[in-house]
């Protein structure tokens, strides 16, 4: 028998079987309280400000910043490219398409992390994927990205690398030497961009021949 026929005898029935059986949907759509607690405890929902700054500067199209504070606060200051979904309106139908999708990565942020975490927990409980929280919220954003503190001279090299990245990202995003209070007017991300050093990022494996 020719190899091709042999192969056909094996894979055509397998293909037919897999086409005929219903897809395995045993994975629960919604999370149980246990799973949610587990996820919250491992803090998987948090995205560091460095990662977010890196994505904003590179104009990465695969993420969406979502401001969950109320509209007044959003109009006073928001991160570049952010949209406003106040946490009170989170369950409104008009936002479902944004929150429940698997194309983009949504990153919630608020002043601290409490409100953003509320939004994350509600959407996670609904079984929505791809929602995350900006670690530390805007307060930490100002501290870490827009006004980074120089590490002590005895700090390890990684601290200095982090500081350099924060400094250059902060400048590109309109922070730098201005105080945090004044930064409320800095909407423009179009200021001159110094070279950005890449933030240490977890790489996903990719295949190929």
């Amino acid at each position: 028998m020719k190899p091709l026929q042999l192969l056909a005898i094996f894979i055509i029935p397998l293909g037919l079987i897999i086409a005929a059986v219903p897809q395995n949907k045993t994975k629960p759509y919604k999370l149980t309280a246990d799973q949610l607690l587990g996820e919250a405890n491992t803090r998987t929902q948090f995205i560091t400000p460095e990662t977010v700054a890196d994505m904003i500067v590179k104009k990465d199209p695969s993420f969406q910043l979502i401001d969950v504070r109320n509209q007044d606060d959003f109009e006073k200051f928001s991160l570049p490219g952010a949209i406003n979904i106040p946490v009170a309106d989170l369950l409104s139908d008009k936002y479902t398409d944004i929150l429940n999708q698997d194309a983009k990565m949504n990153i919630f942020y608020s002043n601290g992390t409490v409100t953003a975490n509320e939004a994350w927990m509600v959407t996670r409980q609904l079984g929505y994927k791809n929602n995350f929280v900006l670690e530390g919220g805007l307060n930490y954003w100002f501290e870490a990205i827009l006004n980074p503190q120089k590490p002590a001279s005895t700090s390890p090299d990684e601290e200095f690398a982090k500081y350099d990245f924060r400094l250059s990202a902060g400048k590109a995003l309109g922070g730098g030497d201005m105080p945090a209070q004044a930064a409320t007017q800095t909407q423009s991300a179009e200021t001159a961009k110094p070279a950005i050093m890449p933030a240490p990022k977890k790489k996903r494996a990719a295949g190929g021949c």
Partner: protein
Amino acid sequence: MGPLSVNELISNNTNLFLAFIIGIGFGFVLEQSGFSSSRKLAGVFYGYDTVVLKVFFTAAITAMLGLLFFSLFGWIDLNLIYINPTYLTSAIVGGMIMGVGFIMGGFCPGTSFCGASIGKIDAMVFIGGLFIGILIFALGYKIWDGMYLANFLGFPKISQVLGLSDGVVAFLMVIVALGMFWVGEWAEKKFPREEY
């Protein structure tokens, strides 16, 4: 090592080490099967040797059926499988550059390293070209990042785009693969070469 590193059962370094071992095995098999000859890859284009097509398509079909059956038995959660993001424009442009490179060079990145390791000069030249390409892309990133990131479609699967179940698409792919193998064998008879 898919599930092991995703679930953090092994560290990143162990993962790299395993990748290194698997990579050596992969290279060894490629070399032993004659893939380190540029004529083998060029043969797919000219029709006298379609082994490369058969090997890679068989691998894809095996992995596809394996994953679907594993999922059916509840052994693997398909949601954890990493799907490459689709940037439509760069996929098309990159595919064309890659295809032209395959025919011109007679190597794919993997087989060029196989060829170089057994001392083939054309393979070393190919690797040189590969690095020049990487340099041009990296240094000129500002020029083409607009095109590179254009038409981002998220992480779609063919089954979602067509509105069919994964299983039906898998069956169609099996049929397509067998059809291509048949055409390949026909081409091998039609355009034979004595020595290459």
